């Protein structure tokens, strides 16, 4: 919302530097984005170079057919010669002049210069040149009562400050200048002027035919009829205010509706009464397929959910959003039907969403405007139509559902302190509320909420906020008096950190990739019905694709060593309303299968988990080498997925953590010495080394403390189709020193078992 300060000050004459006012508004009321200076710059006496002037003589420029050569009295001893391109005036006209040296709002500095051989000492001004309007058809003609030489700034609003504020969803009252004035009055302790507008005299009592079929979505409709309306330009002061507030002047009638909306926050609309079939207004739902061309020129087809303003035959406005082009007020209009209505917020919101429309009126209705305001808006607009368009006010009707009523709330005096932590006296509470328009009466604090806040302030706590927000700068910093402490990560959270740290320690970089992916291998994965883009469409069930994408980005960026991991949720379809979210860890690493497997082995070791890997087809990828392990897989990536040798893994952390021992028990590996043996076995090529290891463990039992594969050899000595697998075994007991016979017995068990199960022959 843009708030021209001169307009604000008409309602509240606060005495405070503007910057300080803005600073305080930020604490108590709303965001202030910035303060903008608009119009004629007033530095270095620039405003003094803009004067009222009277044209003494105006003749055709001797050397140019389209220019006038004027002599104008600017209050100095001698008239000045000025060349002017406009022809809408002659000798005797009272005009606005900028003298040489003057700087215009667009930054141009005027100087005395020759125009087609004649000196021009400044410029006779059109309204757009000083940002008082948009018209450049002719120069501004001023009231002849003004004396030549009068500073122009005394006559016209040449310069103004504009506060640009952002209003919260809960404060529809702040979408109006008067509402902000009320806030400023409360904030500064200044008196607030009464609401603008005085009811004009009613010249006649013609009937106004208004029928409301949907009182829920249109709780109030005030229709007023005006005859003998002279549609034309608005006065400069009004144009300047509209421009300052960010709206374009159109014509006096339309400008009045916009002006009053900005002043009071309740939007209005003006219809050309002559173009309303039957002279009627019917507020109803659209009939399926009905069409309307709205003021923005778009032909719109309406669904039956849309509320429209119709005449006897067809829609003439989309209620609360935009008027229709056919019933628009034009230069020919003489009879105006003024609509000062109230539209329910949700209805307008949904219509706007369905029709993809946005208007100033709509943004106000969507926040919820009090129906009471329609009356004040009708009154102020009527006054201005009579005053500015010479209209005769000849008819009035007010079709209203029972007004929603204003809640009365009891505020316990201690509640503010209970919420804010500082004592606020009852008198102060009473005064602050009263300044905001709350009626505070009775014993204690019985508070009646004003209409313009009735939607937002419904409960005691809402009143607490109304008082508290004026004291926020004084709130001290204390800490809760604690009776119980919780400062510890859960087991899963600690383990998850550990997983990240272990991978980082192995050289992996952590990545963050999107939960929403273009595709997912699980055909039942949850799909957004309306994604933002096709690239973010499916809730992933695997972290792999995001990592592959990031790996590719790095390769393309010229980074050779790439090792990435991610820890994040996956979203598994359950057939129920909500998916099952599980924590996964996944990694992608340059260098192939064994690098990925090495990382996983280290991870399992740190977590205290058994190493179990078995050849298995990949759950969803073509892969030249893949092993299943607890809660996931390790694989060589298909080169079509990522060019070169890449390994990858993905593990379900919840499954993994379920097996992590609660505590690690001490094993005595110090007291009795270990016996180490290296054994090489010749086996058939297809026997997996992992199965040899597992079988050896089974056979030797707990005294086989450690076993690992340290060499695989193929060659003529082993024979065709066979390989030699070398195992390093460590036998150790926690109870006694193992004698040579013990070691021999254990070795015998291993050799016998591997021979029996795999036809393994012990090599020398």
């Amino acid at each position, binding site marked *: 919302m843009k708030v021209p300060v001169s307009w604000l000050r008409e309602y509240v004459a606060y005495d405070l530097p503007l910057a300080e006012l803005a600073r305080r508004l930020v604490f108590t*009321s*709303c*965001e202030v984005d910035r303060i903008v200076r608009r119009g004629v710059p007033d530095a270095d006496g620039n405003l003094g170079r803009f004067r009222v002037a009277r044209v003494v003589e105006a003749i055709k420029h001797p050397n140019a057919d389209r220019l006038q050569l004027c002599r104008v009295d600017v209050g100095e001893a001698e008239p000045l010669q000025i060349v002017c391109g406009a022809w809408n005036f002659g000798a005797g006209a009272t005009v606005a002049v900028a003298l040489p040296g003057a700087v215009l709002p667009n930054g141009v500095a005027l100087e005395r210069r020759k125009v087609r051989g004649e000196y021009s000492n400044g410029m006779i001004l059109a309204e757009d040149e000083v940002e008082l309007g948009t018209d450049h058809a002719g120069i501004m003609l001023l009231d002849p009562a003004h004396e030549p030489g009068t500073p122009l700034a005394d006559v016209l609003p040449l310069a103004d400050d504009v506060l640009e504020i952002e209003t*919260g*969803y*809960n404060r529809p009252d702040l979408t109006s200048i008067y509402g902000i004035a009320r806030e400023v009055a409360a904030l500064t302790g200044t008196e607030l002027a009464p609401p603008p507008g005085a009811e004009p005299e009613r010249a006649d009592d013609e009937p106004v035919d208004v029928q409301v079929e949907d009182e829920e979505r249109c709780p109030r409709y005030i229709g007023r009829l005006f005859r003998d309306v002279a549609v034309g330009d608005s006065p400069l002061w009004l144009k300047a205010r509209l421009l300052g507030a960010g709206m374009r002047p159109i014509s006096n009638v339309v400008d009045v509706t916009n002006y009053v909306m900005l002043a009071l926050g309740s939007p209005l609309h003006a219809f050309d009464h002559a173009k309303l079939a039957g002279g009627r207004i019917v507020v109803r739902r659209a009939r399926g397929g009905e069409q309307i061309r709205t003021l923005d020129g778009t032909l719109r087809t309406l669904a039956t959910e849309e509320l429209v303003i119709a005449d006897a035959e067809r829609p003439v406005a989309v209620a609360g959003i935009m008027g229709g082009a056919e019933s628009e007020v034009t230069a020919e209009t003489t009879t105006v039907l003024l609509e000062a209505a109230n539209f329910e917020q*949700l209805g307008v919101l949904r219509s706007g*969403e369905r029709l993809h429309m946005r208007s100033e009126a709509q943004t106000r209705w*969507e926040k919820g405007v009090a129906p009471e305001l329609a009356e004040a808006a009708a009154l102020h607009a009527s006054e201005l139509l009579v005053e500015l368009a010479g209209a005769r006010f000849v008819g009035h009707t007010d079709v209203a559902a029972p007004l929603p009523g204003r809640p009365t709330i009891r505020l316990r005096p201690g509640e503010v302190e*209970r*919420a*804010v932590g*500082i004592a606020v006296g009852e008198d102060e509470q009473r005064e602050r509320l009263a300044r905001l328009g709350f009626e505070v009466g009775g014993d204690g604090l019985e508070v009646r909420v004003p209409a313009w806040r009735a939607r937002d302030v419904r409960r005691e706590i*809402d009143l*607490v*906020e109304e008082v*508290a*927000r004026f004291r*926020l*700068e004084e*709130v001290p*910093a*204390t*800490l*809760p008096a604690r009776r119980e*402490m*919780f*400062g*510890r*990560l*859960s087991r899963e*959270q600690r383990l998850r*950190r550990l997983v*990240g740290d272990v*991978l980082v320690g*192995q*050289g*992996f*970089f952590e*990545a*963050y990739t999107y*939960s*929403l992916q273009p595709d997912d291998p699980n055909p039942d994965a949850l799909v957004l*019905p*309306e*994604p*933002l883009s096709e690239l973010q469409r499916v*809730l992933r069930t695997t972290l792999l694709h995001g990592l592959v994408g*990031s790996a590719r*980005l*790095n390769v393309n*960026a010229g*980074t050779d060593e*790439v*090792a990435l991991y991610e820890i994040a*949720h996956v*979203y598994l379809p359950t057939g129920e*309303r*909500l998916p099952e*979210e599980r924590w996964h860890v996944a990694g992608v690493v340059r260098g192939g299968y064994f690098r990925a497997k090495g990382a996983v082995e280290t991870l399992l070791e740190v977590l205290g988990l058994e190493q179990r890997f078995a050849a298995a087809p990949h759950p969803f990828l073509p892969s030249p080498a893949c092993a299943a392990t607890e809660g996931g897989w390790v694989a060589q990536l298909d080169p079509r997925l990522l060019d070169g040798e890449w390994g990858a893994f993905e593990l379900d952390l919840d499954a993994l953590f379920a097996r992590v021992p609660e505590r690690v028990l001490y094993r005595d590996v110090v007291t009795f010495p270990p016996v180490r043996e290296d054994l090489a076995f010749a086996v058939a090529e297809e026997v997996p080394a992992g199965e040899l290891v597992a079988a050896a463990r089974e056979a030797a039992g707990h005294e086989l403390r450690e076993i690992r594969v340290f060499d695989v050899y193929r060659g003529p000595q082993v024979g065709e189709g066979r390989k030699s697998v070398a195992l390093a075994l460590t036998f150790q007991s926690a109870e006694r020193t193992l004698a040579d016979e013990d070691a021999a017995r254990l070795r015998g068990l291993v050799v016998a078992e591997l021979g029996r199960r795999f036809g393994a022959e012990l090599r020398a």
Partner: protein
Amino acid sequence: MDWTGYENEAGSAIAAASTAAELDEARVRYLGRKSELALALRGVRDRESGQLLNGVRGRLEAALDERRAALERAELERLYAESAVDVTLPGARFPRGRLHLLTQIRREIEDIFLGLGYEVYEGPEVTDVWHNFDALTTDPGHPSRSPTDTFYLSDEVLLRTHTSPDQIRMMESREPPIYMISPGRCYRRDTPDATHSPTFLQVECLAVDRGLTLADLQGTTLTFFRRLFGPERKVRMRTSYFPFTEPSVEFDVTCFICGGAGCPVCKHSGWIEMGGAGRVDPDVFRNVGYDPEVWSGFAFGLGIERIAMLRHGLPDLRAFWDNDLRVLSQF
């Protein structure tokens, strides 16, 4: 026997030894068990010749020790000279990875709150309208509910738009007191640009206890930001609106780049907007079965990316999701 001649001869042999072996040879020859000196000492019967021979032995042993030490020194010097390197050459590195910057900041935030006696709660990202909006007393007409702002999977199920559903889940799960933070991914239909991403990370703080006030909120945010950004920081609260807090505030922290004097980071205001906060709305308590006359609480929320961007001067938040190692390895 000419012991002076013996001593001179032995002394020369020791001095001439240029290796440990030569030295040992000299020792065996002149001081060994079978040396003339040892044999003579064994046969000594009178005190005078005993003194003489022991004197010779003592001097020779000292000369031997001295020569041995000199040879060892020389050997060590040779070794040092051989192994001298250009110490400015690169080291043999161990592989090094990094936690993502966002995780580093997330952990830092978690650790601060753990130190303040808060627990870390992590709820699901796919949730229902009840937890994301209704229970948080969000108006039916509030723009955040609109499908133009929120990713819906169905009329009832959506991707959470903030971490606040975790407040509800936590409160539904147990009785106060509650002191928790909930970090995690959130989703909004924002078109990606330098400061917006449809996926982003938030962390939310919730405290529910007896007698909590806005002053406790102020003190908690102050403590938090001083630990995060340094002990000089100040915080302030400004009025605002959120459906689930009353009163609602936004809080700012004094700029940690310029210290409050004004700079481009704080847009010359001296203050940086950090997030939204407020006292828990009594209707939120009613929705989870807490009595608002007994319990009171405060909550606040922060964007993790924003902290990372401000602190490290990252201009574009999309960099967090690209995972370009040239960027990630800087932090």
